[in-house]
Every structure is written in structure tokens, then in C-alpha cells.
């Protein structure tokens, strides 16, 4: 009897994160890091504190941002875990816990922050 792998749980999160990163990642980085700071298509007041507070005061954008962050983290954790194995650091419970544990912690933090942005 072979033991069933629990990889489907993290693989699903990895896959969802991969899809989000592929579809939205490039434009997200382009907007935040290049277009807004350089004022290309955006005014100097873009991404102002008040604008973002009111935008993420709504539950949907806040939750959306938290979910994107969480899935990116799980995507990264999954690939980093396997790539460490590829690079000669054998897969172990400890490394698995470190990788997926930090992704889970980051996800928890993102959800908590999203909640705070909506409530306060």
C-alpha cells in the first residue's frame, strides 16, 4: 500500500498563485513600480494615502489584495521548496515547514491587515 501524497493541497495553491502571477503580475509590477513613480499615465497624486485608504476600505479590493499576496506566497513557497531539493538541499519536514509555514503566516498577516483596513 502506497501512502497518498498531501501535495494536492499545496499544488492547488501553487497553481492558483501561478495563474494570478501570470495574468496580473507583470501589469501589477509595471503600474506600481514604473508607471506611477514615473508619472506615465498617472498623475503625481496617484496612489496617495487617502485614495488607497478609501479604496481598500471596501471589503472586496482589500480581500482581493490579501488573496493575491497569499497566493503569490504559496506559489513561491512551493517552487522554492522543490528547487532547494533540486539544488541539493534534500526535501525534509523542517524545510517544508519553513517554506509553507512562512507562506501561511504571510497569508494570515495579509488577511488580518485587510480586515484592519476595512474596519478602521
Amino acid at each position, binding site marked *: 500500500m502506497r501512502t497518498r501524497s498531501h501535495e494536492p493541497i499545496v499544488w492547488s495553491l501553487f497553481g492558483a498563485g501561478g495563474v494570478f502571477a501570470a495574468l496580473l503580475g*507583470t501589469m501589477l*509590477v509595471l503600474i506600481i*513600480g514604473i508607471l506611477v513613480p514615473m508619472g506615465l499615465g498617472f498623475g503625481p497624486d496617484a*496612489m496617495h494615502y487617502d485614495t488607497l485608504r478609501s479604496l481598500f476600505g471596501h471589503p472586496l479590493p482589500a480581500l482581493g489584495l490579501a488573496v493575491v499576496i497569499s497566493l*503569490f506566497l504559496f506559489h513561491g513557497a*512551493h517552487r*522554492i521548496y522543490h*528547487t532547494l531539493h533540486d539544488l541539493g538541499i534534500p526535501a525534509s519536514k523542517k524545510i517544508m515547514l519553513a517554506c509553507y509555514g512562512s507562506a501561511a503566516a504571510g497569508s494570515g498577516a495579509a488577511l488580518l491587515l485587510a480586515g484592519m483596513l476595512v474596519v478602521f
Partner: protein
Amino acid sequence: MTPAPKTYVRPMNRWWMRHPAYRRYLLREGTSVMVAAYALFLLAGMVCLVLGEAAFNLWRGFLQSPVSVIFHLAALAAFAFHAWTWFKVMPLTTPPIRFRGRSVPDRMIFRAALWAWGIASLILLVLAMRFL
């Protein structure tokens, strides 16, 4: 039963040097470091946003710095390479799709995914220009 012959197993050290496909693979997997790093960067932005205007302006101000531009250009390359390779292998991971009794060729799925990438990016850009 005859005893098993003495055999030699070659080590795997630096196996990625043996084939360009292995290096492409590791580069593809390596993009995930940037994906995770960018998630942490956004998380830091969220923290600052919760802390208040002064903290957020520090994060917002960092975006103007050359370090940020370099970080974002690297992230841009990583996300773009991730997207390209993700869509490239997508036909292998999706269940077989049939259209009028024929299976849809891989390059059609790849092309459709590229369109989806473009459209999703455009929608995100329009939303950002409207709400940021």
C-alpha cells in the same frame, strides 16, 4: 540467484550544467523567488497603509528611488518570464480539450492564454487608472 553485479552510480552534483533545458527549468523555478519577494513587498505596503499616512509615505517614497526601479525591473522580467513559461506548459496540465470532435492543438491554447494575459493586463491598467 546470481549476486547483483558491482555497479557504478554517477553523482548528481551540478547536474544543471549538463543540459540547457535544466538551466531554463531552474530559471523558470527561480522566478518564484521574485514572486514571493514581490508579495512581501506588497505586504509591507499594506502594513504601512495600516500604520498611517507617515509610514505609507515612506513606502510610497521608496518607489521613487533607484533601488526600487531596479527591483521592479527585475520583478518585471521575472513575472514576464514566469507568465511566458506558465502559458507554454499550460497545455500539458489542462485536461484534453476537444472542439467539434478534434483535440485543440497546444499552440492554440498557448495563443489563447497570451490573449488572456493581454486582456487581464489591460483591465488591470484601466482599473488602476480609474481608481488610483
